[in-house]
């Protein structure tokens, strides 16, 4: 049901690596987010302190999550809103469907929401004859293409403008074939025109939430386009679908997290639109939804609490980890096979899908540490990827051949004399084979290496044997 192809990560990655258009798109975006973040961080002397505080706020909230959820729920009710609890994605789908049916909805306008992707809300709506309209430009483009987002804040980062034009021409059949549509501004105009009409047609607007505020019962969305606001302001029903860990105690806490969010995500000091919503429209309000619903989704998150993965729940979904990840930047988001790509996905997906399904992800990392370096809430992502590897190793999920090789190596590594004897012989042999060229172009047991690169030959005798025989630097 999850629609995950995470199990096939290796094959997915091979497919994406062979995709030259993807490579062109990723090359174009390269540096855009990373340079932006660097500049934004440099322009705010308090940035590191704010990261520490954001981490501490999230830790504090998670430690008392039941309290804050109940406090939040009470405030939402006081303000005239409804709170629904969803243990699973299926619960969330049923709740959404129930609300849509209660107002006889024909169309639902959507602000960008990864939780909605996680719960496969669009698929459920379509299956029930309700039109789901993604209004974020990136989401709209991929919806036209029948694709999934490849990035949590830039869903269409894997596409080139040529591909966007192609999709618009295929779907917007009114377009004059002679109309020039190849530049981003004209593409945006076309999307704006089409979506503008749709804002006024839907009965239900659905958004995620970047933050939920316990003290006020408010939800906050952060966008640049304004689509989230139009989606939640115009229809008569607003549904907020948010996971339980989005909560923070106060508006002051939210402010701190907002200060690191956009800077980490896009390098903006603040996004164009940060909107705080509390309950449905009030008496005398000329606009706003008549009904305000919040669905609090668990879907496996509470199971991470009290484990070595608890810190993952601090994640504020800024995408900095994937923007800085050399693996993500090589294979793109679709290779990961599910909603959450990049380092945060490599830790979260095994937690939500199970390590049997998503076991590749925490392995597909060089532990280069860039993700942790930029994470605004200082999640130790490499450490947690290693924790998943430990679980896999203990469950004997890692490949047999690798285990045998590792076991043999560990046996030797624990016995220095034997190790030195054996490696000494091996290296002399390798040195002899590689002597003429100084390197080896193929080696049966190192195909993963020699498929793509030469293996430098050892110099000859090992350092330890030369040292033991008295050799010293001149």
């Amino acid at each position, binding site marked *: 049901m999850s629609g995950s192809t995470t199990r096939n990560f290796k094959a997915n990655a091979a497919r994406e690596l062979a995709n030259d258009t993807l490579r062109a798109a990723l090359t174009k975006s390269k540096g855009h987010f990373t340079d932006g973040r660097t500049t934004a961080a440099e322009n705010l002397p308090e940035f590191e302190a704010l990261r520490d505080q954001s981490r501490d706020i999230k830790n504090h909230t998670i430690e008392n999550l*039941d309290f804050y959820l109940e*406090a939040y729920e009470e405030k939402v009710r006081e303000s005239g809103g409804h709170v629904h609890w969803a243990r699973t994605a299926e619960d969330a789908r049923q709740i959404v469907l129930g609300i849509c049916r209660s107002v006889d909805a024909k169309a639902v306008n959507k602000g960008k929401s990864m939780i909605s992707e996680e719960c496969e809300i669009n698929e459920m709506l379509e299956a029930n004859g309700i039109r789901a309209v993604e209004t974020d430009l990136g989401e709209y483009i991929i919806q036209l293409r029948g694709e999934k987002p490849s990035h949590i804040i830039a869903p269409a980062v894997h596409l080139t403008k040529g591909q966007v034009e192609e999709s618009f021409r295929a779907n917007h059949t009114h377009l004059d074939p002679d109309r020039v549509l190849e530049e981003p501004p004209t593409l945006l105009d076309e999307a704006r025109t089409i979506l503008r009409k749709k804002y006024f047609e839907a009965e239900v607007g659905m958004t995620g939430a970047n933050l939920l505020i316990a003290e006020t019962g408010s939800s906050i969305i952060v966008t640049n*386009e304004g689509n989230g606001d139009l989606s939640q302001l115009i229809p008569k029903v607003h549904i907020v679908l948010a996971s*339980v860990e989005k909560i923070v105690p106060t508006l002051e806490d939210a402010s701190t997290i907002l200060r690191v969010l956009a800077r980490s995500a896009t390098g903006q000091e*603040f996004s164009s639109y940060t909107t705080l*919503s509390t309950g449905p429209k*009030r008496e*005398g309000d000329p*606009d706003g939804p008549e009904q305000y619903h919040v669905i609090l989704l668990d879907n496996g998150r509470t*199971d991470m609490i009290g484990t070595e993965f608890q810190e993952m729940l601090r994640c504020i979904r800024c995408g900095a980890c994937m923007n800085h990840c050399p693996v993500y930047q090589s294979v793109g988001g679709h290779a990961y096979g599910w909603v959450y790509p990049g380092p945060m996905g490599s830790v979260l997906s095994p937690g939500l899908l199970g390590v049997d399904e998503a076991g590749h992800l925490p392995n597909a990392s060089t532990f280069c540490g860039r993700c942790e370096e930029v994470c605004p809430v200082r999640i130790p992502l490499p450490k947690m990827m290693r924790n998943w590897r430990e679980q896999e190793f203990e469950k004997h999920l890692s490949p047999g051949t690798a285990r045998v090789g590792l076991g043999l190596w560990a046996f030797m590594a624990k016995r220095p004399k034997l190790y030195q004897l054996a490696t000494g012989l091996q290296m002399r042999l390798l040195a002899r084979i590689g002597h003429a060229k100084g390197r080896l172009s193929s080696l049966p047991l190192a195909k993963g290496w020699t498929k793509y690169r030469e293996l430098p030959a050892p110099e000859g005798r090992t350092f330890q044997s030369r040292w033991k025989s008295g050799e010293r630097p001149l």
Partner: protein
Amino acid sequence: MSESNRETVLGSLRRALGRDGPVDEDTAAKLRARMVGHARNTVPARTDLDAAGLVELFETMAQKVHATVAHVSSMDDVPGAVGEYLRGENLPSEIVMAPDATLDAAPWSENALLDIRRGAPVESDQVSVTSVPAAVAETGTLAMYSGPDHPATLNFIPETHVVVLPAGRVVKSYEDIWDSIRAQAADPDSGRDGQLPRTVNFVTGPSRSGDIEQTLLLGAHGPRRLHIVIVDGE
């Protein structure tokens, strides 16, 4: 279903947190105190400025995110400045305007060229004019509160949004906004009836998107142009 889900989620949370039930009364009291204490975390020092400095910082930050700024010396000059901006940008002179008291103070009728309607916008409206109760110098952010005098759709539907900002309303940080809306909620004369505004819109520059090849485009769904008229004398 929902009720049992609620108990299941809270129950599994509590077990994971090593508790049998809700937090004990002492802890609950501390957590409640934390929530109503509204303690500020670090607020960037860049806003340690006097009133004039804050307006200047606001303006710099707003321009950095592609808003345009004009200054007038009093509310009397606002209609002229709005008309001039619209003509300069070759925009229509029909405007939809928030029915708020700040704007009431300007002599709109003296500017015969403007065709004004007060209230919420419709799809075809091209230009909106609103005032704002506050603006944040830290990031050049306008704060707008929804209500009968400020339909929130004015901030999003028209392609051009002209904002009238009395200079004295520029504050340092988001935290100042929270304090101010809490004070308003508590003030019996405010008409807020103990409540925060339903919607607080922080607007920082015009609508933008980078979704096509990370190229910055203005006017994705919200306004393409955000023009701020700062009223220096107010």
